[in-house]
């Protein structure tokens, strides 16, 4: 990655390990981070949702040739809303629908908000990956 991520986007905490690097950023810096990565020609690999016992976490994994850059965003339990990124990365659609289905995260602006992989008859139960 030619320009370093830290000076372009205000980050809370950064850690590097081998080929991977993790950037913990606030929710409202997400858009600038995505714009930066888009210019770098990063390819969205996948999006991971995690229930970290006291808050929800969403990790965006971007791949640039050999390295993987992960952007981590925290979401409070009571307001789990996150803007969609399908306008920049079309492939994110399926991964965001998985967030909706498995973790009950409310992705705003997604064109097709159906839950992922849950049989329709069971969509009213609590999302399976929540540590209830």
């Amino acid at each position, binding site marked *: 990655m030619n320009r370093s991520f830290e000076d372009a986007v205000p980050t809370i905490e950064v850690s590097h*390990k*081998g*080929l*991977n690097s*993790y950037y913990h950023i606030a929710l409202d810096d997400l858009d600038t981070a995505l714009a930066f990565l888009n210019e770098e020609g990063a*390819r*969205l*690999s*996948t999006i*991971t949702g*995690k229930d*970290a016992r006291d808050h929800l976490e969403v*990790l965006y*994994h971007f*791949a640039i*040739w*050999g390295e*993987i850059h*992960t952007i981590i965003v925290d979401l409070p339990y009571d307001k789990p809303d996150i803007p969609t990124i*399908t306008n920049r*990365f*079309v*492939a994110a*659609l*399926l*991964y965001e*629908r*998985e967030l909706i*289905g*498995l973790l009950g995260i409310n992705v705003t602006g997604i*064109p*097709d908000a*159906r*839950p*992922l*992989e*849950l*049989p*329709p008859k069971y*969509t009213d139960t609590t999302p*399976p*990956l929540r540590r209830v």
Partner: protein
Amino acid sequence: MADVNERRFANLKIPIGPSHPALEEPARFLFEVEGEKVIDVDYEIGYNHRSIERLCQERPLSKVVYLVERICGICSHTHPLNHVERVEDIADIEVPARAKYIRTIYAELERIHSHMLWAGIAGHEIGYYTLFMYTWREREKVMDLFEMLSGSRIMHGCNTIGGVKWNVAEKQAKSALSVLTYLDTAADKITKAVLKDSNIAERGKGVGSLSREDAVRLGAVGPNARASGVPEDTRVMCKYAAYGDFDLEPQTAKDGDVVAQALVRLAELKQSIWLTKELFTNLPEGPIQVEYDEIPPGRSVGRTEAPRGELIHYTETNGTRFFERIKIRAPTLANIPSYVPKFLGCQIADIPIIAASIDPCFSCTDRMTVIKDGKRKIVSARELKAGRI
């Protein structure tokens, strides 16, 4: 564009799946057909979802390897290989060189048997059963090789945290080399059969093509992307296991139609056979497993090249006996958006050959993918294609 939407389901709808001879696993494609031409395709998967990710969090550390191995029967080595490498990355365990080589041997043998399986199924889809019979007869030799090395044809169970369980004896390496030289000639015959004898080439020309921009935009991976000219091969990019010692170059073709997919996969078949022979010849000495005391809390994300493309594992541990979170993104899930433009405009007769040429593996994918619920609003192919979303 608007008028087309009104009329969109007036035509004949052909449901293929969830249990259909053309598809190995349950997936449901609903094709809207005008005469013989497909004008809209709608996919619905999720029949294979076995709640693996939650089970991974409920099972103790050492048992998860066996669960991860049973995500997909065809690529039953790539998933645990990736998982084990993530845990070793977190705990900074240095795996001995011989274990790395043995892991790469299994990975490449798996690619050989998976691509041969694909060639057979491609023949089966267009009704050319002789190709299916021939390739699956040759493929039995690879399954015997697996059985000799690890004792079982499908679930080898050779990966553990810190190394490999089954060693490769001197005699085994010698007989494996002879089998591989035979497979080399068989691969040439299969290439000739697929591209010349069976009319896959003649029926597949220009069918189900995917342009390079679409492939990159829709995030295609593996042979599916390489057939459209995207030179990305995780073995070259990430150099995991023993791939660092070999300089592979990705096999690519141009226009991403059925013939291009065949070219890429058959070239990869030959490449894997060559690579496995190299691995067997200069297999280093030394131990095959390293002890580890306990796994510290930490996280790691990494990629391996499954026969169908780039497979990503994200693993996070919290120092206890259980994993904090395991996330698996299979190659076929990344390829699904790129399947849709392939089906548009094709004929009914081409549906199975296109479905086969993509070589979807929904067992890998289904741990986490798409369900259509009551509301009929779905992302139709046109919207995906037009990128309006």
